[in-house]
């Protein structure tokens, strides 16, 4: 392997995508009479059979409620659930599994931080920095705090090519800046943000940093301790795991200072009508019965990608991105939106005479699944002067053949909209 940019080069010859592809039952079907070409993993990834089997195994053999029963079966379920927490810890190199909070998804993770940490530690006039490319889930929870307690939400300008310059984020810091909440990788454009530099500057000024890792987690090996941020959020379903599970990682000392988000069963120490005391993290933030099977399935997804190796996955996907970028760039009348130097395997594009929804419908007619729309990033679309884009996102189960199918599909679109 040779180094090329951020990623180790893993050429398609060195990476047996076809072998891994065989693990994903959903990829082996025909859609509208053509073999499925699935290019929407950035919205949600397909699941390997190892994950499906883990779900079945849990329900068939080891299922009961967790943290409650004194009986063996409940203990088995609890063990599997808590092992999953440890698997997540290892995957993101957290210091302690107590720092891994299971949520319903990354959206809930950010909402948890906004509700709990935000309400407890932010006051009127405090500033929260985001960027113009954030997903709505990293905009709206802070807007709610703007209304509720009068914080100031400041979006940092991005470059026309979709890049985010660390110096622009750092320059936006003022004495009132209390939180920087930014994407690690842009879901709409694929831009990899210079988070290390931003975190270093923030930490020098004692500013809390939250990274939205939804897109990064499947493309970049994440080490939360090396990054030095305070919160890191992501979802299971974009990492080849089940839906309905997300992670909030936070530094333990910070989490234990935060008030509960939701209240109820499993998160309390003592409840009486005189008052209630709460458990420490992570249970403080996990009220009610969690998504037990999905969490266990998620751990199996992490084990699956870890066996392949995220560095190898990243290297291979980078090669796919380069190939797709080169091929799409050859198409006259097609413009790639988002050409930052450091990108994960996501390509957004617009075409002359064809609206993204028309492109999406026509590609679907040839079995090609892409995302068309504003990608839950309307302010970004406005900033870039487009209403919507078509987005193709590539996972390690995609191949150069998928890119070729996309190019052929786009030619069909052009035939209709000539």
């Amino acid at each position: 392997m040779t180094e090329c940019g951020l990623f180790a080069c893993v050429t398609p010859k060195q990476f047996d995508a076809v072998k891994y592809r065989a693990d994903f039952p959903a990829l082996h079907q025909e859609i509208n009479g053509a073999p499925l070409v699935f290019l929407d993993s950035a919205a949600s990834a397909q699941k390997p059979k190892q994950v499906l089997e883990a779900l079945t195994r849990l329900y068939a053999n080891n299922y009961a409620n967790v943290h409650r029963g004194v009986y063996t079966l409940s203990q088995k379920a609890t063990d599997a659930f808590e092992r999953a927490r440890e698997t997540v810890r290892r995957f993101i190199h957290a210091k302690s599994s107590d720092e891994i909070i299971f949520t319903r998804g990354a959206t809930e993770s950010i909402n948890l931080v906004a509700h709990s940490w935000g309400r407890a530690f932010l006051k009127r006039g405090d500033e929260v920095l985001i960027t113009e490319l954030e997903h709505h889930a990293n905009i709206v929870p802070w807007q709610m705090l703007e209304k509720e307690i009068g914080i100031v939400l400041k979006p940092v300008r991005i470059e026309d090519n979709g890049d985010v310059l660390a110096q622009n984020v750092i320059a936006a810091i003022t004495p009132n800046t209390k939180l920087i909440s930014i994407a690690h990788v842009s879901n709409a454009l694929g831009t990899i943000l210079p988070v290390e530099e931003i975190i270093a500057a923030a930490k020098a000024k004692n500013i809390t940093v939250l990274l939205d890792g939804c897109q990064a987690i499947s493309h970049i090996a994440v080490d939360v301790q090396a990054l030095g941020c305070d919160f890191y959020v992501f979802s299971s379903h974009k990492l080849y795991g089940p839906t309905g599970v997300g992670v909030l990682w936070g530094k333990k000392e910070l989490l234990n200072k935060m008030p509960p988000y939701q209240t109820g069963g499993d998160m309390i120490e003592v409840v009486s009508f005189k008052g209630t005391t709460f458990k420490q993290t992570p249970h403080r933030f996990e009220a009610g019965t969690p998504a037990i099977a999905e969490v266990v399935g998620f751990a199996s997804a992490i084990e699956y990608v870890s066996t392949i190796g995220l560095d190898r996955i990243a290297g291979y996907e980078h090669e796919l991105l380069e190939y797709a970028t080169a091929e799409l760039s050859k198409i006259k009348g097609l413009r790639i939106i988002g050409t930052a130097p450091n990108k994960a395997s996501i390509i957004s594009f617009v075409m002359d005479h064809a609206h993204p929804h028309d492109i999406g419908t026509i590609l679907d007619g040839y079995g090609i699944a892409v995302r068309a729309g504003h990608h839950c990033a309307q302010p970004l679309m406005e900033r870039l002067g487009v209403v919507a884009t078509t987005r193709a996102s590539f996972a390690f189960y995609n191949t150069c053949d998928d890119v070729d199918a996309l190019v052929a599909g786009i030619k069909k679109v052009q035939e209709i909209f000539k």
Partner: protein
Amino acid sequence: MSTSAAELRDLYQELILDHGRTPRNKRKPPEANREALGHNPMCGDRMTIYLTLGEHDALIEDVAFEGQGCAISTASASMMTEILKGKTAAQAQEIFDYFHTLCTTDHASPPNHLNEDDLDRLDALSGVRQFPIRVKCATLAWHAMQAALCPAGMRQNQVNSEGDEKQ
């Protein structure tokens, strides 16, 4: 649901592509006395419909629109302006009801004041039946038109076509 190449061709037939490429009545008439914005939250498309209603709000003297959309929503707005000009407000509502039923069910019967040309236009647009997620593209302009027809005070200035899918 499976999409065949024939269904794709049916949806993107020449009449639709023509109206999508060169929409009719894409303008803001200075004398328009009603307007409403249609917004499709799925894609961010926005379309403003302008109506010029005659005395007693009975006759639609002019219909026009401005905004951006996909081929389907643009063609639908364009054809709607041609169909509704000269109709009464009540007839416009009947035509929308018919068109909506045409796009979302298999049993629709047209009002008798529609001529052959209008029926052909609506029939072309109803190709979205095979593409449930796209029904809201076809009905966006119509929802905005309907909102613009509402008497002042009851009028929503912005509407969407959420919920429009084939049943």
